């Protein structure tokens, strides 16, 4: 099976398993791991007697945010279904670009109107969260296609705010 970790892909195979002891190959590297879910979403893993604590947040059914002590990873399971969906997506050339905020917050100000032509670096929307305001800019010269929010709106993380072309 293929697994995408951040920006690279790894070939993963479960070679054998007995209860919570598994033998796994990752890009040819073999690991004997004792893996137990100790709390909801938290795994205790022993490999060569080293103790690892890994926290998983499921974003979607095959997408995880995985946190080790020192780092966070975006991990995606790529099975036949996802491969099929991805290949279809590639055919679909209608790629839209949107402005969104990585955090939830409140719209302070929308600085553009639909149909506006904006220049690279122009601020198009200001979002406030926790007493701090963040400005969102366009990276290239763009046309404002659709404005999906109004001032005062409460928004979620990654929600499309403005559609640009």
């Amino acid at each position, binding site marked *: 099976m293929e697994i995408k970790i951040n920006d690279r892909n790894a070939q993963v195979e479960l070679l054998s398993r007995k209860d919570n002891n598994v033998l796994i190959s990752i890009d040819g590297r073999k690991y004997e791991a004792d893996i137990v879910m100790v709390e909801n979403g938290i795994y205790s893993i022993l490999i060569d007697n080293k103790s690892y604590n890994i926290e998983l947040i499921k974003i979607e059914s095959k997408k995880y945010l995985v946190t080790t002590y020192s780092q966070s990873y975006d991990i995606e399971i790529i099975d036949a279904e996802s491969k099929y969906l991805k290949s279809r997506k590639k055919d679909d050339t209608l790629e839209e670009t949107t402005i969104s905020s990585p*955090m939830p*917050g409140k719209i302070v100000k929308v600085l553009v109107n639909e149909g506006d032509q904006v220049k690279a670096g122009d601020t198009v929307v200001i979002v406030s969260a926790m007493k701090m305001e963040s400005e969102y800019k366009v990276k290239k010269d763009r046309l404002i296609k659709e404005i999906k929010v109004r001032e005062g709106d409460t928004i979620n993380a990654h929600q499309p705010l403005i559609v640009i072309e």
Partner: protein
Amino acid sequence: MINKVLIANRGEIAVRVMRSCREMGITTVAVFSEADRAAMHVRYADEAYFIGPSPSKESYLNIKKIIKAARESGADAIHPGYGFLSENADFAERCKKEKIIFIGPSSFSIRTMGDKISARKTMIEAGIPVIPGTDKINNEKEAIEKSGEIGYPVMVKASAGGGGKGMRLVFNEKDIVTAVRAAQSEAREAFGNDSIYIEKYIESPHHIEFQILADNFGNTIHLFERECSVQRRHQKVIEETPSPIITPKVREKMGEFAVAAAKAVSYSGAGTIEFIVDDDLNYYFLEMNTRLQVEHPITERVVGVDLVKEQIKIASGFELEIKQESLQQFGHAIECRIYAEDPDNNFMPSPGKIKHISEPLGLGVRHDGYVYEGYEIPIFYDPLISKLVVWARTRKEAIARMKRALYAYKITGVKTSIRFLERIMECPDFVNGKYNTHFIEKNREFLLFSKKHDQKVDDVAIIAAFMDYTFNMEKLEARLFSQNGKSNWKNSGRKISIQRL
């Protein structure tokens, strides 16, 4: 003694105040906005009153609504915490008018210290050292003379200034005239007013503050200093006590000035005198915070006094029992502020739902927080999640303990500053106690350097995700089987095809 206290605040400080109230047998009243119905301070309090929509202006900053809740609940006192209405003189006055005890100083003290000009004037009169500076400069000759008196480097500032405009830093007399002219012209353009003044520039400023307590009988004491120079955008990040740079002699003298400063405004309750200190341990009054500070726990730990209890006792009209000469600093304490923010992404705030939290515990660790698993940190308020406070016999041991506590502190669901704080504990400048308010800027690279890539840790992360996926698939299959009977060939086929993917 006060019987019932309304806490006009939220988050960790509301819970912290309630804890002391509970120990004193005082009934606690919470107030909450729409966003805070499920917040810990509502759960912890004996009573809770709804005070309006989520934005602070319509709830926690709304004096009318808070007074109404106090009247309805029959609270005889209000504790304002920090932030919100804690330094609002009108609110203190309104409480007085309503015959509700405001747990804090008089509106006169708040007003005098709240205004920079009147505070500076009052301090000069009381003989407290302030940053050397001038009134309005009338001509270039005066600029040269006064700058010479103050001693270079100096900062030329626009009287109407703000945002860094009309400011010029001058290191030598030869540059002063050019600087004055440039500042004047910039100020004229920016503010339509070219009047300027000159102030001493503190090159490596340390932010050191003194905790004071004053009762209504003229007794004022200080509880030593807190070193608060680890700041980011003028926001304190880490505090410690004792300060690694202060000497016993300077401490004693600064403490005396802190007491004198408080007395100069007839202060009552807990307050903090902030000083700017340079590398040569010259110190200057900066401002007074007329309330409890976020970082008060490090003082509590090293001196052994519950500051909230002292506030309540003073507000109840009791005389201070603690005497200056009985106080001493025992050991060393450090506080780290844990914010919901993303250090890797320019410290952008990160509100959201807490998926999992493991709090660090054990010897010498105090943890003042308010979030819990499943709690959604709202977007409307401060990103402070909790304060991690450690104590140890020595500074070195305290740093080791803080590292241990940060190591064991885990929060998922929101981004936090925990790993960034860990880097500070490892940063040589901090470890050696050689830092000033430029510390984070100066060490930016070291602090944001993420640990080197470790193939094995990557692989362990992959194993966890892969096995979780596998376990879930098995559960799903088991369910399919149990729903469709044991010998369902179609599902059996499906099972095999899933495994082969």
